[in-house]
């Protein structure tokens, strides 16, 4: 049978099943394939907050979404075009996210009586017309695989486990992708476990063949290559990118990397990755709590390491006192906060952007700290790296903000080499006779740094206010005012290293969208779409939130209306209002989910209609 081929620009696919069905791996492999054939890809895993919820329940569904296509994807995709579903529950929970007319490829063996009961279906939705809004292809994967693998004398459980590769085979056929990359991967991973290797390869091929032969599959798709810059690529999560950014900074700066951390969702993977980098000299204290984590990092910084601490909201709340110490000590420190939905324990696995206030204002006393926010998974690498550069150059703690969405989602990353990365600017004191711990570099106001082990530079400092230059404890009134002002000025001076903000779209006019952090992708897609449709719009995305780019005020004043969508109740908006005395239109989503491009688009259309 000849299949029709359709060329499509982008598509959103979701692999969903029970927690034990291996959907995370399936999605990951599919995403890699998409990247390797030259598309852009953006993914997001979506798994239950329970470690291993009861099988086949609604809350036990684990899914992996892949959005790929021939242009920059930016988000994980708004609505699902194709759903691969291993059981009844995994269709049910995903229905709200399916595009009308979406294709559901369902494993019918996951729709038995007990599956249906656990998914709270009264009758079989594959048969009773429940899915009539969609195109459903239902396949009894385990029976097909039983046949395929009968020579291997496997147990039914093992045969059942090949479902995911069968599914992947279908997916590759459907999007006209090759199998060899995955077969190669299986070889490197299971090459020695010959049975697993063999059964999965067969499943992959069987799925592919099945789709090709089945009359139910009438179309297949081709997604043209995206215009990707040449080079080596990999898919990477924000958390792994952040970990790599820190190691790269360590190598480039020549300072050993030190991490003082305490596990917390969704930041823990940074700790996991760094724990594996012993070959790179990474020193880690998995501390007894977040306070010890940051306090030990301050110690390591005092002793001359590139010191970092990583956490999420509740942990950041515990680091507040220590951050003040880092400020008054004027020691370099990179603090990565992977934001999640609060307050308190809140919704630990869900992203939010609601720690901005805490990062900006959360210290007793006057204690300003620079803040950079990553805008995508890849950017977590650069934000961490840049954070380290600024921390060392200005002798200051620096916040790097990420969130649960960036942390776990992936996109292809054009991997740089260490050589290509920018250099570090900092130095240790050289002349003991000229040394005073709070003598400053006039350009950066960074104080002179000397560390234990350096002969002749012994000094005694701490968290009490100290005299400028000498660092000797004093309660002199004017000195305290001076030091408070210097600490503020130092952070303000970082603006000289902050690139000017760039306006996309109209350079002046009615409506300026300002984004920060992970809102980038959704705004960018909505913005591009509306601009393509002819709307006049402008967009500035902020990476540096403290200090703001030097030209931000000027930019803001070129527009009549400022619109800031953010994953909180308007924190950046508040700060912009305070700094620039301009009223901000906000769009505040606190639902434990990132914005979709569609949401932003609709809000923008409303604003455009309303006019000024």
């Amino acid at each position, binding site marked *: 049978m000849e299949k029709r081929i359709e060329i499509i620009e982008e598509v959103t696919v979701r692999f969903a099943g029970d927690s034990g069905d291996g959907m995370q791996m399936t999605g990951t492999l599919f995403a*890699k394939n998409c*990247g390797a054939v030259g598309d852009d890809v953006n993914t997001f895993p979506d798994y239950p907050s329970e470690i291993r919820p009861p099988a086949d329940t609604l809350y036990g569904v684990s899914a992996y979404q892949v959005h790929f296509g021939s242009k920059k994807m930016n988000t994980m995709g708004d609505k699902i075009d194709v759903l691969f579903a291993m059981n009844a529950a995994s269709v049910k929970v995903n229905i709200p996210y399916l595009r009308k007319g979406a294709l559901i490829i369902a494993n019918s063996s996951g729709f038995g009586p007990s599956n249906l009961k656990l998914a709270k279906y009264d009758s079989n939705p594959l048969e009773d017309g429940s899915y009539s809004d969609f195109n459903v292809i239902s396949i009894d994967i385990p029976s097909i695989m039983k046949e395929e693998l009968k020579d291997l004398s496997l147990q039914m459980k093992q045969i059942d486990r090949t479902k995911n590769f069968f599914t992947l085979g279908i997916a590759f056929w459907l999007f006209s992708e090759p199998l060899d*990359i995955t077969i190669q*991967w299986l070889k490197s991973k299971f090459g020695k476990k010959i049975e697993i290797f063999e059964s999965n390869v067969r499943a992959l091929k069987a799925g592919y063949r099945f789709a090709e032969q089945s009359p139910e599959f009438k179309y297949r798709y081709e997604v043209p290559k995206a215009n990707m*810059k*040449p080079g*080596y*690529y*990999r898919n990477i999560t924000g958390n792994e990118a952040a970990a*790599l950014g820190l*190691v790269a900074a360590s190598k480039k700066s*020549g300072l*050993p990397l*030190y991490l*003082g951390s305490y596990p917390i969702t969704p930041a823990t993977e940074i700790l996991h990755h760094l724990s594996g*980098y*012993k*070959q*790179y*000299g*990474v*020193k880690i*204290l998995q*501390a*007894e*709590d977040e*306070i*010890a*984590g940051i*306090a030990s*990092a*301050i*110690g*390591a*910084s*005092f*002793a*001359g390491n590139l*010191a970092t601490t990583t956490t999420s909201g509740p942990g950041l709340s515990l680091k507040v*006192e*220590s951050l003040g*110490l880092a400020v008054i000590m004027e020691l370099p420190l990179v603090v990565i906060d992977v934001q999640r939905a609060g307050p308190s324990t809140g919704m630990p696995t869900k992203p939010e952007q609601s720690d901005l206030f805490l990062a900006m204002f959360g210290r007793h006393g006057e204690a300003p700290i620079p803040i950079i926010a990553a805008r995508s998974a890849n950017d977590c690498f650069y934000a961490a790296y840049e954070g380290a550069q600024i921390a060392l150059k200005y002798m200051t703690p620096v916040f790097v903000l990420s969130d649960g969405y960036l942390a776990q989602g992936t996109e292809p990353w054009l*991997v*740089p080499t*260490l050589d290509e990365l920018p250099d570090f600017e900092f130095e*240790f004191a050289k002349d003991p006779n000229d040394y005073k711990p709070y003598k400053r570099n006039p350009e950066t106001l960074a104080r002179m740094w000397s*560390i*234990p*082990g*350096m*002969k002749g*530079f*012994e*000094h*005694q*400092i*701490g*968290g*009490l206010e100290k005299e400028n230059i000498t660092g*000797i404890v004093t309660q002199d009134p004017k000195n305290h005012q001076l030091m408070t002002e210097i600490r503020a000025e130092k952070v303000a001076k970082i603006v000289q290293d902050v690139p000017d903000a760039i306006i996309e779209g109209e350079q002046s006019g009615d409506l300026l969208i300002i984004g920060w952090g992970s809102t980038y992708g959704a705004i960018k897609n909505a913005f591009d779409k509306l601009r393509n449709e002819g709307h006049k719009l402008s967009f500035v995305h902020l990476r540096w939130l403290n200090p703001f780019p030097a030209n931000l005020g000027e930019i803001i004043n070129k527009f009549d209306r400022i619109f800031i969508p953010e994953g909180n109740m308007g924190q950046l908006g508040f700060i912009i209002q305070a700094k620039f005395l301009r009223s901000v239109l906000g769009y505040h989503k606190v639902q434990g989910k990132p914005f979709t491009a569609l949401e932003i688009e609709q809000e923008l259309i409303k604003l455009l209609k309303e006019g000024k």
Partner: protein
Amino acid sequence: MTNIIDKPVVPVGELTAKDFKTPIDVRWCAGCGDYSVLAQLQKIMPTLGIPRENFCVVSGIGCSSRFPYYVNVYGFHTMHGRALPVASGIKIANPDLSVWVITGDGDGMAIGGNHFIHAIRRNMDIKIMLLNNEIYSMTKGQYSPTTQQYSKTKSSPFGAVDYPFNPIALALGSGATFVARSSASNPKHLSYVMQRAAQHKGVSFVEIYSNCVIFTDGIFDKWTDKHFVDENAIFLEENKPLIYGLNRDKGIVIDNLAPMQVQLGEKYSENDLILYNEKNLALAQMIATMSYDNELPRPFGVFYDVEKPSYDELINKQITDTINRMGPGNIDDLMRGDDYWEIK
């Protein structure tokens, strides 16, 4: 591991206590016990064969925690209760340093209690000097976790109902490898104990009774004053019998797994007494209970001293071993990972 500081090879023998003094005025009250501890540390430091720039003195907040300002080495006066994690970071970052933490009963046992038990558990190679005055002095006299029950203080005008910690017992319960007690009013003994602490590789915990002339003046007299010390204190010495008394006529035996005081002479002779053994944990624990809730003399000296690798040593060794085994990592390879592809 890469260490940006070259190890110095300077002889250090010429330095004296004076070289370890800073020009700053010491601002403790006249008569404060902390002076004595400072003097001992300044005397010991030049004798340890460690270059001055390799010493680091770290403290929290409290009267006692003002210490670093007075010692002319690298000094870090951190936050209340957080000296140990800061010191841990320093030590892990640079294992060549000799890191001393000076803390108080409030700083170290109240707000800093968690770091205390964890630094000990990890056997972090840090010398912890806890200057115990059984009070929060800096904040003008509230009871602390070592204050005796029913003491009247600013925050317990009716008497504190809290039971105190026994710091020696707590340290032993946390897995300590070196535990000792001394007193600021016995400089010779203090100096000895501090030297032993310095020599121990791994975490060293020394509880030092330091009299606060303002808020708890005299509380330790019972055990430290020259009129009482002989009768009420007992000095632990390796392999020596537990003997004390003005006339050295009393001793300690272990009876029914508890220390018991005996009169030497008729029924008991020196040979019946237990010989102290710094490596016996149970003995240390038993002796630690002496004069807490009982009428036994209070023990001073080294309770326990065993060797095991320290955290900073192990973590740095794990790095070196890995590099020796697998070679120093190539960062470009790490960034690219295993699952990359090429777009041409």
